[in-house]
């Protein structure tokens, strides 16, 4: 049990993925700044933000359920950290009982979004409710294409749903990105992750310009620090999951470490570039995009995977 708590709290869970996620968040902001011809934040900016938020005064909602509102961010961090454990252990090739069941990962990855929604509606703020309803609709949109991509992976990896077996299959037979269905699946998965992370063009639930950060509008001080922590972790583990599914996982032995870091950074770079070159879409446009186009792509990927392409 002590081992599992270590995995969860220190490595590769809360602390490790939080720190790496913080650096990735800095990377994301730095690239954004470069795209916009700005200087960008210093390397430790995310840490400064986090500590500053913790020391800020916290404002709690007067109406609504304060208890639920305060518990929600804790569960957001839990959901992110436990997903980090289940995704990163197989990725780093650490032999444990946690082999990373894909179905479980899909469900756990939804927990942070779910807790933002619960926290938002518990705050009794109408703008937060608008954000919550958009976030839920976004989940409904990307759930099916994301699952279809996973089924194409499952088919390619001889019907196994364990992440470590999927990775070892790729190590033996070449990464899935090398096949046609893998490329299509990667595009779909990347856009689903964009929506999962709530990045532009799918930052509809936050919608800074129209609903003042919507779903997170009422979070402040310590509660907002926790929400941000969950977001940092998600910014690391979702690209890491994609790396595991399409690029054959990570390898930290000798020189491979550079290559592994590059893989994750590459995925984050793609996400950042997408977010810097696109305007925000409306929720109905996003739903149509995922339900029609992304599903179509994902189905093509599944069919190709069935024919072994």
């Amino acid at each position, binding site marked *: *049990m002590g081992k*599992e708590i270590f995995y*969860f*709290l220190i490595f590769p869970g*809360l602390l490790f993925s939080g720190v790496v996620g913080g650096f990735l968040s800095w990377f994301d902001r730095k690239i954004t700044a470069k795209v916009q011809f700005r200087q960008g934040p210093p390397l430790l900016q995310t840490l400064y933000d986090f500590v500053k*938020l*913790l020391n800020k*005064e*916290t*404002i*709690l*909602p*007067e*109406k*609504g*359920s304060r208890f*639920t509102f*305060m*518990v929600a961010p*804790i569960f957001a961090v*839990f959901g992110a950290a*436990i997903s980090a454990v289940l995704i990163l252990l197989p990725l780093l090739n650490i032999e444990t*009982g946690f*082999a990373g*069941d*894909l179905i*479980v990962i899909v*469900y756990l990855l939804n*927990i942070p979004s*779910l807790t933002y*929604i619960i926290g938002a*509606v518990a*705050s*009794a*703020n*109408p*703008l937060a*409710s608008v954000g*919550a*309803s958009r976030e*839920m*609709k976004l*989940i*409904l949109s990307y*759930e*099916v294409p994301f*699952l*279809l991509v996973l*089924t194409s992976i499952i088919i390619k990896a001889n019907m196994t*749903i*364990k992440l470590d077996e999927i990775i070892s299959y790729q190590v033996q037979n070449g990464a899935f990105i090398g096949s046609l269905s893998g490329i299509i699946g990667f595009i779909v998965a990347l856009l689903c992750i964009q929506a999962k992370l709530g990045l532009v063009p799918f930052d509809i639930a936050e919608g800074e310009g129209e609903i*003042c950060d919507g779903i997170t*509008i*009422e979070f402040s*001080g*310590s509660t907002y620090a926790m929400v941000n922590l969950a977001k940092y972790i998600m910014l690391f583990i979702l690209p890491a999951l994609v790396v595991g599914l399409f690029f054959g996982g990570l390898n930290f032995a000798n020189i491979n470490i550079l290559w592994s870091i590059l893989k994750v950074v590459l995925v984050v770079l793609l996400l950042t570039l997408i977010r810097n070159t696109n305007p925000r879409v409306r*929720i*109905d446009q996003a739903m*149509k995009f995922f339900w029609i186009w992304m599903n179509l792509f994902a189905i093509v990927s*599944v069919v190709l995977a069935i024919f072994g392409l």
Partner: protein
Amino acid sequence: MINLHYLIGLPIIIGIVLFIIPEMLKLLKGIVTVIITIITLYFSITTFQLDNELARLVCFTFPSLTKFMDFQIDYLSKLIVLFIGAFGFLFSLYSLSYHNRKNDLTNFYSYFLITLGAAFGAVLADNLIIFVTFWGVLGLTLYKLIKGNDEESSSAAKKTLIIIGASDSLLIMGIGIVWMLTGTFNISEISLSTTGALPNIAFLFLLIGALTKAGAVPFHTWVPDYVKSAPASSSAFLPASLDKLLGIYLLARIIMNMFRLTEWATLVLMIIGGITIIAAVMMALIQHNYKKLLGYHAVSQVGYMVTGLALGTPLGIAAGLFHMVNNALYKSGLFLTAGSVEKQTGENEIDRLGGLSKAMPVTFIAALVFAFSISGIPPFNGFSSKWMIYQGIIDFGKGSGIANNLWVIWLVMAVFGSALTLASFIKLIAGVYLGRQNPKLKKVKEVNFLMWFPQLIIAIICVGFGIFAANLVVPFFFERITGKFDYIGIWKSQSVTILILVSIVIGYLIYLWGNMKKHRVSDSFIGGEKIQEETEFSALEFYKTIRTYKLLSFFYDKAEKKRFDLYNIFKAIVLWFNSLFSKAHNGFLPRYIFWYIAGMLILMIVLVF
């Protein structure tokens, strides 16, 4: 078999005796009912510990009937008996406080006890004649457990009786065909293959009987209407728990004991399962009544059980049965919370409720647990059984049949249905318990012990079944029915639960580390403007976008006009024939003289040639 007498005979006899006691002494009737349910609970537990056997009850009054009195005590029936016993006790406790008003349902407790006894009888019976007798009684008590004194509830009661009655008659025909083919009425002796016309018809008829009781598409339409106007205790007792247990029990018997399925039969079942999941939950998404929303979910969840059982593998069947038990738990719990809210506020419409989490904390927590369970959030019980079903589907995909090759479709339907379930429960929780409090509900208080205790117990069982699913609950209850099986995935629910506790502690520490003591309470920020009391984004607006999509709105419009309701379709056909025949009987003399002459002519023609 003394247990069987107590389980089946006692509740029915006491139920009949209670008809004599006047309604004035409702409390006395209630207490008697609680005592009886405690006795049946005790005997259902002792029955669970019995060895498997085929028991024959001696019928003293009619000795010649003894040869029909075969009762099957095996792992499946023992499991269902145990849960019926537990639900009977919890709901009778709840009803004690829920049904204390005057002008309430008359003879509620009598029908409650008769239902209980008949349910035990139906589950334990091995002889199909005995089985169908108890089964029919359950249809009748279902009809009597709804008030029926206003137009809406009486039409719902009528609809229920007609649909259930029609399906029961098909069931009887199916049993007749089975007897014709095998020459026996005993379930344990029947083994048919679904090849050839007659076995297929029998299979179909029995299937309709089971699915109507459980409430699967397209035979589901009685469920939402019934639960909307029935008292919450009736809804929790029959459509939410007992009807699910019984309907799926019959389905399991059909699949496991009576018939060997061909791949086409499997395909039909998988299609029914998938469509049930999606269609019903899509309807639930747009509901604005607490109970009716739950009613559609009561239908949607059946899809998972049918899917699980249809897989036919030990993993699939265990998953389906586990989901049946889980669903009975959280769904009946949800109906109890609906009843509590209704009792304290007098309201069922979501837009007139709101912000009840402070006033009714226990009900809120229970409702939250049930909502997360039904939406399959780890580590609650709904997740465990859904996870088993998904694994079952993927495992099933390795096989080579028509249904096997389409496994991706079943998997997507099941997972997407789960996401939609979550969406509609977010709406429910946001609309009823969270959000801004409706000013009219300022004085609302928590329900009393008798009402919150059953909710809490069921919520605790939901959490417990989730946490101890893979290594305690499933081996103890379900693996014994289906035989051992291997999971293809890994889900360590206990470790995760401990990590949840750890993260709560860590979260608390981070809050302490942060500047949480210096917090301030303030009303909602809406961009700097002062918020008005009425400013609200109603939870009912959440999914309006989905309702307006072209293809979906086409189906929604049709569904709201009840175009997909088999009951309405048949009603239209019958009424059309009625109007056709009534044209012949319009009450005018010349028309009758015309029939008279025409008849004479036809007679003459027949006689001449």
